[in-house]
Structure formats: structure tokens, C-alpha cells
């Protein structure tokens, strides 16, 4: 059919962030062993407890096997062929943004994340991470006035060692899984957020992760702590240049919410996805988990996953506190030969806990898109409730979508509800919109954003607009 082919054309949008910044970098040699880990720790001037944390994690990792249960296929990763630390060469100590290499500022400018005083985004504080290190964090003074700490995790290790020692690895233990163990051993940088008791963070916080070099992995670590009755909205964006090799990105994100605290964590992931033949692209193997420790605490994940050759992540919530709430809203778009195996885990431990899962998977081209989720009701989770909705949309006839919902209940006095649907953009729907004067591309993108509306409604305003645009871009193409 004519339109079938048009749909295929329309999803071929070239990647717009594929440029490489030509900058002198400090890289350590390839490979992974105890000496490398000691070297990373030494470069970052870390306290002993952290080096011990890393070495312990490394020992565990060596004993673990790379998991293979996901509905994914990829060539075996050679962990000795990766550079574990790569940083742009800069002056030893940077006291202000003026001293940051202009090439770096330019890079973030090009990505739409201006960092300089004159141009910086007005209502969002940004931590910009380039390969293994954090380049700059904006609005730090303003945030400090409210007692909010927002800095790179390396700085937090130096200046807030007590908080790091208390919380690091408490939500995602090093032994949690293969990639979490690897991250714990070699993590280089990432963001740290601390919201003190009773404070509503005065602006959205955001981290922007940029992978620049082709042969180094990115292993960032993010830790967010919301004290009693505090709240914060955090945004995460990611891009990478186009290389014909695969780059490993194995991040760990830990969130902790105490009594009556709320954390909203939103991601727009647009790592390089590889080309049409599936050459190159990022392996995005990420462990994200939040712990609702306090009563009535709330953690909400929303994610728009459009990039990466392979996405493998399950932002999850441990619902310990009585009446705590976990949410997961996800849009995952795959195209060409992209693969995504993503979903969430909602572990209900405390009584009267509530969770909501809304997942929208869109598969185009020859891609594979799976939702995998676990809802577990523990013995003490009386009166707890879960609602899950998993919808898939297929574009073209070569793409595939799977849903793997796992449900475990040890508590009869709890409710679990699961709904799932699969739809295809039909020729009739497209013709209907076109016969009302709406261009083909706009018709496709209208239907896709309509499909994702429940999730977009959960994103912060600016992000929702960006996500909508990003999906439209991904679906826009050469239709003349």
C-alpha cells in the first residue's frame, strides 16, 4: 500500500545531536581492574569509604554474570575494551563559568542548554555533565539561599560526605544487578540533590548528560534526597554523537523521600540510536529506583525514551511508608532496529500504599518494544492498590510490541488492576485526517501524541512541549 511506505519514510528522521566536540580530553587506559578503580578514586580525591565502596562493588561484579533475560539481542560487550574515565582537559580549579572551555559552553549551547549567565534558562537550574565529569551547575547561590544543595556528585563527596556515606547505595545496593555493580565500581560523576525539611524547591532542577567520546562508557550516579515535607521536580536530558561503535551507558539513580516529601523525576532520553542498519548507538542499561521511606511520601517517574540502540531500564518504587505513592508514566518510541525493554517495579511494602503505571510503547520500522513490569504486594501491604495500563502502538508491519506484566501478591486485602491494549495506525485513520486537510506527517504525529497524552500530561510544562516536538521530529521525514 502506498501509505504503508509513506509511514516507513516518515519515521526516518536524521539525528540532530550527532556532532562531536573537538576537545582535548584526559583519558585513562582501556580496561577494568582494581588499579583502574583506585586511579579513578584518586583522580577524584575521594575519601576512603568511597574507595572501599567501589572495590567491594567491583569484587561483587566480578562474580556476577551479565543477565540475558530481557527480550533483547546484542553482541557481547567486551568490558576490557572500554575507557572508564574520560574528561575534557580543564584548569585544575574552576571558580566561575568564565573559566570553562568555551568549546564546552558552545556544545551545550548547540544542544539548547545554554549555561552562561546571560543566556541560561530562567526557571530551571542545570547541572551539565560531559563524558565523565560535571562541567557546570547554574543557580547554585539562589538555591543555597533556600538550603537546597544541587551540585555534581563529586563535589558532594567532598563537601557533604556525611550525606553521601549515609545514603549512597541504600536504594540500589551494589549487589543489586550486574550493571548497578559495575556502576558502583566505576561511576565518575552525576548529580546530587538535597532538599531540606519543609522546603519546596523554588525551581525545577535538571541534569543534562552528554556523551562525547566514542570509546568511553558513561557511568553517572545521581542521588536525590527529599527531607520531611519537602518537594522537588527534577528533569534529565541526554544526547550523544553518532559513532559506528556502541557506547555503554550504565547509570544508577537513587531517590529517597521522607515523610510527606515528594520527588518528581522526568527523563527525556534521546541518546544516539544507531543508523538504519542498526550500526552504532548507545546501550542504555540503567538502574533507577526510588524509596518512599516516609509516611505519605510520593515518588513519580515520568520518562520519554526515544533514543539509544538498546534501552533497558525499569524506574521503580519501593513503597515502605504508610500511604506512600509511586507513579510511573512512560512513553517509549523505537524505530529502525532499536530495541527497548522497559517498565517499572512497584514494590508495596507498607500499608495503604498506592501505585499507578501508565506505559505507552510505540514501535516503528523493524524495532522491538517491550513493557516489562512487576507489581508486588508484600504481607504488610494491607489496603494497598495498584493500577496499570500498558498500551502499544505499531507503525508499519515489521515492528513488534510485547507486554510482560508480573504480578505477585502476598496480601489478599489489596487490589491490583491491569489493562493492556495494542493498536496500529490504520490507513483509514490517516485517510480520515488527510481528507480533512491535515498533512500526512501531521496526521501521524497527531495520532502519536494523542496516544501519549496521558503521559505527556504528567511532564512539567516545558518538558511536555519538548517531548511532543521530539516525537514529532522522530516521526517527521522525507515525505514531500
Amino acid at each position, binding site marked *: *500500500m*502506498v*501509505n504503508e511506505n509513506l509511514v516507513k519514510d516518515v519515521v526516518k528522521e536524521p539525528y540532530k545531536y550527532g556532532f562531536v566536540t573537538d576537545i582535548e580530553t584526559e583519558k585513562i587506559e582501556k580496561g577494568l581492574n582494581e588499579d583502574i578503580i583506585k586511579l579513578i578514586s584518586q583522580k577524584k580525591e575521594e575519601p576512603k569509604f568511597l574507595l572501599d565502596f567501589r572495590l567491594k562493588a567491583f569484587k561483587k561484579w566480578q562474580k556476577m554474570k551479565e543477565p540475558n533475560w530481557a527480550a533483547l539481542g546484542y553482541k557481547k560487550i567486551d568490558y576490557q575494551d572500554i575507557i572508564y574515565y574520560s574528561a575534557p582537559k580543564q584548569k585544575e580549579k574552576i571558580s566561575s563559568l568564565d573559566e570553562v572551555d568555551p568549546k564546552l559552553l558552545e556544545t551545550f549551547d548547540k544542544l539548547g542548554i545554554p549555561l552562561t549567565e546571560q543566556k541560561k534558562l530562567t526557571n530551571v537550574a542545570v547541572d551539565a555533565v560531559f563524558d565523565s565529569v560535571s562541567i557546570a551547575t547554574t543557580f547554585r547561590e539562589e538555591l543555597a539561599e533556600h538550603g537546597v544543595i544541587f551540585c555534581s556528585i563529586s563535589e558532594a563527596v567532598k563537601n557533604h560526605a556525611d550525606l553521601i556515606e549515609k545514603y549512597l547505595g541504600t536504594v540500589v545496593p551494589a549487589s543489586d544487578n550486574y550493571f548497578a555493580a559495575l556502576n558502583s565500581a566505576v561511576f565518575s560523576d552525576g548529580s546530587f540533590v538535597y532538599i531540606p525539611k519543609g522546603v519546596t524547591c523554588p525551581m525545577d532542577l535538571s541534569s543534562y548528560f552528554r556523551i562525547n567520546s566514542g570509546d568511553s562508557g558513561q557511568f553517572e550516579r545521581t542521588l536525590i534526597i527529599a527531607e520531611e515535607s519537602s518537594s522537588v521536580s527534577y528533569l534529565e536530558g541526554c544526547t550523544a554523537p553518532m559513532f559506528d561503535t556502541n557506547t555503554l551507558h550504565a547509570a544508577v539513580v537513587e531517590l529517597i523521600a521522607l515523610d510527606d516529601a515528594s520527588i518528581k523525576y522526568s527523563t527525556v532520553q534521546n541518546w544516539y540510536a544507531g543508523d538504519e542498519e542498526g550500526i552504532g548507538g548507545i546501550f542504555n542499561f540503567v538502574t533507577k529506583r526510588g524509596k518512599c521511606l516516609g509516611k505519605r511520601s510520593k515518588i513519580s517517574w515520568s520518562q520519554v525514551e526515544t533514543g539509544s540502540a538498546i534501552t533497558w531500564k525499569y524506574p521503580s518504587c519501593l513503597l515502605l511508608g504508610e500511604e506512600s505513592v509511586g507513579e510511573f508514566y512512560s512513553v517509549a518510541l523505537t524505530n529502525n532496529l532499536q530495541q527497548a525493554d522497559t517498565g517499572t517495579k512497584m514494590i508495596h511494602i507498607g500499608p495503604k500504599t498506592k501505585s499507578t503505571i501508565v506505559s505507552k510503547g510505540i514501535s516503528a520500522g523493524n524495532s522491538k518494544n517491550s513493557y516489562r513490569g512487576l507489581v508486588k504486594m508484600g504481607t504488610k501491604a494491607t489496603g494497598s492498590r495498584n493500577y496499570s495500563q500498558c498500551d502499544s502502538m505499531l507503525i508499519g508491519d515489521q515492528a513488534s510490541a510485547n507486554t510482560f506484566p508480573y504480578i505477585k501478591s502476598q496480601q489478599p486485602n489489596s487490589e491490583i488492576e491491569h489493562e493492556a491494549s495494542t*493498536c496500529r495506525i*490504520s*490507513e*483509514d*485513520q490517516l*485517510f*480520515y*485526517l*488527510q*481528507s*480533512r*486537510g*491535515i*498533512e*500526512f506527517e*501531521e496526521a501521524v504525529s*497527531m*495520532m502519536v*501524541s*494523542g*496516544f*501519549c*497524552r496521558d503521559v505527556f500530561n504528567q511532564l512539567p510544562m516545558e518538558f511536555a512541549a519538548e517531548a511532543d516536538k521530539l516525537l514529532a521530529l522522530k516521526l517527521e521525514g522525507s515525505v514531500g
Partner: protein
Amino acid sequence: MQSKMKESDPILEVENLSASTDNLPILKGVSLTVYPGEIHAIMGRNGCGKSTLSKIIAGHPSYNITNGDIKFLGENINSLEPEERSQSGIFLGFQYPIEIPGVSNLEFLRVSTNARRKFLNKEELDTFDFEVLVKEKLEIVKMDHAFLSRSVNQGFSGGEKKRNEILQMALLEPKIAILDETDSGLDIDALRIVASGIKKISNAQTGIILITHYQRLLDEIKPNYVHVMSDGQIIKTGDSDLALELEEKGYEWTDNFIKET
């Protein structure tokens, strides 16, 4: 029939049109000319090619034109995309309006209306101005404002879907409207609302093609011409009396026409 002198140029000229889908011939030489202010009715058994004719005029990609031409305002439109045909003033009212989950009816109507306005070099309407326009048009089809906040046609009853089609026609102000069995599945009250809506929207400048099985719509909207289709051809054309005769004698009566030709 249409050989008498007309004062203005035709809106639509279908000339000896043959078309197929999956190599199966559906239309076998259809000719039809519509002048401004005219109402044409096309009747015929299910599967005779009525709906196909309407879809081909609107540009449905599943059909291939194997012979003949479609001209709109004197220009050949055989190769135009469906959206270009709509923007330039061709409207197809669907027999089975399509549901589009998640897309708000209001936004759909606005984007559609603006696409037509852009073509006409009229200012595109923002949400506030559009709200004013759509309220006025809702009156024509006696639809509740609540319809606008729902997804396009989703969960609409048969009658609501048809009224939503007429609402779109009212917003797009087409030069020619082809209404494919807009009357089917309507109760008497809904039929009256739809019929009076069509009458209000059409004027001396527009052309209407009604595809129908039933006289009851033609009682409300009296056609200038009635065409009977069979096996991909128009086998007889007459005035409104032809429809009455058809109602009385049934399609079997028309089988004789084929034998005659």
C-alpha cells in the same frame, strides 16, 4: 440531461472514470458533472461502486485510476493528495466516520479548519477565536459543546458521528460535499437535524452529492438529479421522480436498464 446551457462553470467533472483496487475493477466508466447550486443523488445496490466513487474523488490511496479524469473547478486533480483536495474545497462525509483515540475533537476541528483557511488566504484561528466560530456552527447540528472535549468520534453514537461530519462540513465550507450514506443509522429527529444542517450550509455556489438508499433523506433535501449506479456504472439519470419510482419498484427494476443497454 446536463447538455442544456449552464450559466457558470462546473465545480466537479468526472469523465469516463474507471478505477480498481488490488487489480479488481470497481468503477467502469463513470461520468458525472456538478454545477454550482446543484444537488445530485446517487443510488444503487450495496457494492455497486457508490462509496468507491466518493472515496476516489476524495483521494483514497487504495484505489488506482485506470482511465478517465476527475476535474475540480476545471483542474485535473487525479494526482493530488487527499489533504490538498480537502484544502481546496472537496468534502467527503464518511459513511462510517473513523475513531481517532486520544486526539481531541476540538483540536482536530481547529487544525482541519485552519488548513482550509490557509488555502483560502484567510487568517488562521487561535484557540479563542476558533471557540467562537465552532460555537456558532454547533448550533447548526444541535450538538453539545461537550462533544468537543472528547476524542474524535470515539464512543460517539451513530447519530453523533454523522452530526460531527456535518459540523466539519460547516467549518470547512467546501465547494462540493459528497455525503456518503449520511442518513443511514439515523432516527427521524437526527435525520431532520442533519438534513437541515446540510441545507443551511449549502448555497447557490456549492454542489452536493448525496449517496443514499432512502427516499426519506431526499424528502428533506430535494435533488435536481438522481443517478442510479450498478456494477461500476451510472445506468440511469433522472430528476427527483426517479428516486420515488425506485423506492416503489426496488433495485430489481433497474436490472432491466442494463439489459436495455
